[in-house]
């Protein structure tokens, strides 16, 4: 490889300021966890992935500097991790469904039929998201999580002026895929 003419100066290492890190954790944990829950549908997996996001933050104390867009970074990493998990789950579900072994997480509920319907609906929404382009799926979920256009643009590295158009297209794409999605097989005791 040709030698670079300018040397990269070593960055002075800044120690993690425990107070900065802790306050960042407290401000962002509920949002980051909720985002990952929406993507995975599994509280334990969402917690593991959310913890992973903050472990990564801990390894990069520079992100806590005031000039860094911490919120954008956290949402970007969480959206990526969550989307990867969603995709992986979708591939697993493919053969699980084929084998008729779709295991519904049944919570104790006063109305099991309604609960099963809700679970099926959740699965269908997630599958529709899993078939979309990652950026589109992430855009929808981050908007649903309450990010402004400016925050969306920063998190997903988009041109702020085109967020409206991209959201509009992502919504159409989602509706199309959701509508075409076959309903997940819900095991029925009567058959």
């Amino acid at each position: 490889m040709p030698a670079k003419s300018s040397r990269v100066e070593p960055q002075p290492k800044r120690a993690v300021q425990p107070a900065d890190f802790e306050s960042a954790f407290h401000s962002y944990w509920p949002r980051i966890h909720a985002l990952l829950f929406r993507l995975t549908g599994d509280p334990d997996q969402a917690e593991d992935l959310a913890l992973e996001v903050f472990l990564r933050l801990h390894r990069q104390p520079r992100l806590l500097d005031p000039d860094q867009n911490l919120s954008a970074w956290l949402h970007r990493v969480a959206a990526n991790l969550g989307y990867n998990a969603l995709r992986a789950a979708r591939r697993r579900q493919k053969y699980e469904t084929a084998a008729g072994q779709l295991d519904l997480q049944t919570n104790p509920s006063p109305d099991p039929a309604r609960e099963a319907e809700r679970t099926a609906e959740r699965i269908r929404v997630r599958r529709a998201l899993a078939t979309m382009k990652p950026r589109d799926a992430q855009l929808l979920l981050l908007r649903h999580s309450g990010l402004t256009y400016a925050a969306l643009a920063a998190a997903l590295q988009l041109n702020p002026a085109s967020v409206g158009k991209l959201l509009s297209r992502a919504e159409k794409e989602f509706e199309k895929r959701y509508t075409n999605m076959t309903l997940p097989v819900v095991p029925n005791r009567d058959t």
Partner: protein
Amino acid sequence: MHLTENQLQTYFDGEMPAPERERTAHHLQTCPDCQTALQQIESRVGRVESLLTHLDPTLVEIPLTPRAYATLQQKLTQKEPAMFQKLFSPKMRPVLTTGLIIALLAIALTVPSIRATAVEFLGLFRVQQIEVVEFNPANLPQNLDSSLNNLDQLIANNLKIEESGDPVEVTDAAEASSLAGFNVILPQDIKSNSHLTVQPETTASFFVDLSLWQGLLDEMNRSDIQIPTELDGQTITFYADKSVTYIAGACVLDQEEFERVPFEQRNCTLLVQTPSPTIDAPPTLPINEIAQAALQFLGMSAEEAASFSEKIDWTTTLLVPIPTGAQYREVTVQGVTGTIFIGDYEHGRSQATLMWVKNGIVYSLTAPGSVSEILELANSLK
């Protein structure tokens, strides 16, 4: 003139700055088409929102912040083994073959090094020579370590390894040769504490989900690197024939454990020989472009990567990336040209790895000693 989709959505979402918002509101009053379009957006946003609301967690499902913080503190105090340590941990059996395949797979996926022959549907690739590319670790993405965990997950989800049987321990070169199906060469004086093993044939299939790789690059702030889209959804399959490993001395494959061994006691000799693994991939695989993406990742500019890539015959070359400053040189070994990578010198001792390819067999010899001692050992193999 009608309002654009972008304007309408931005207006509806309440994200339009004041002066433009007023102009838009004014225009809407006089434009029935725009009003209809706005109503469509309104009902679509409502439908999508209500569907996405199904995914929202209930209060029970959100772990309380203080408890989550305590869990995090606990995790921070445990040292997580790095990906490569996990891959090479004793639990990963059989370590050597799998490790070799994954290493080759990783190298080939990023920098393929392989030759396409005209097979009707599949390209068949074979290693014939080894080339070194230097990279400056300072130019790698800053958060590479944390992203490797992601890579770990990605590989675990997409890699399937099948072995044809169990490793078989053998006693001499003749037995190894007949079992492995090629002529095995060994040191003249086989150490009493050595293990000679024939490793099973291995097939490793890797499914490429491009969005996951691109996401990884985004996270590393290298969105500028584009992996060729033709790779998406492809399955790349590695076939490794039986390989033979010869291990003598104290060999520890766990990196962390290895670093605790005093330097003067690191007397591990490791010889791996295997027919060149072959790779099945679609004939349309844009090798040159994949190679350029990988070279950019290693710190080259797009132009440097393109011009470097031109000079390499990717079809036959196994590319070994090594950090700038690491010592290596070409040497003659067993009558062919090989490359020796020289490790750290300490207490007058060194360890080096010598790689060469002869008659379709890839050899890798790692041993303690000076360059001339290792070369002497390599040339004495029979």
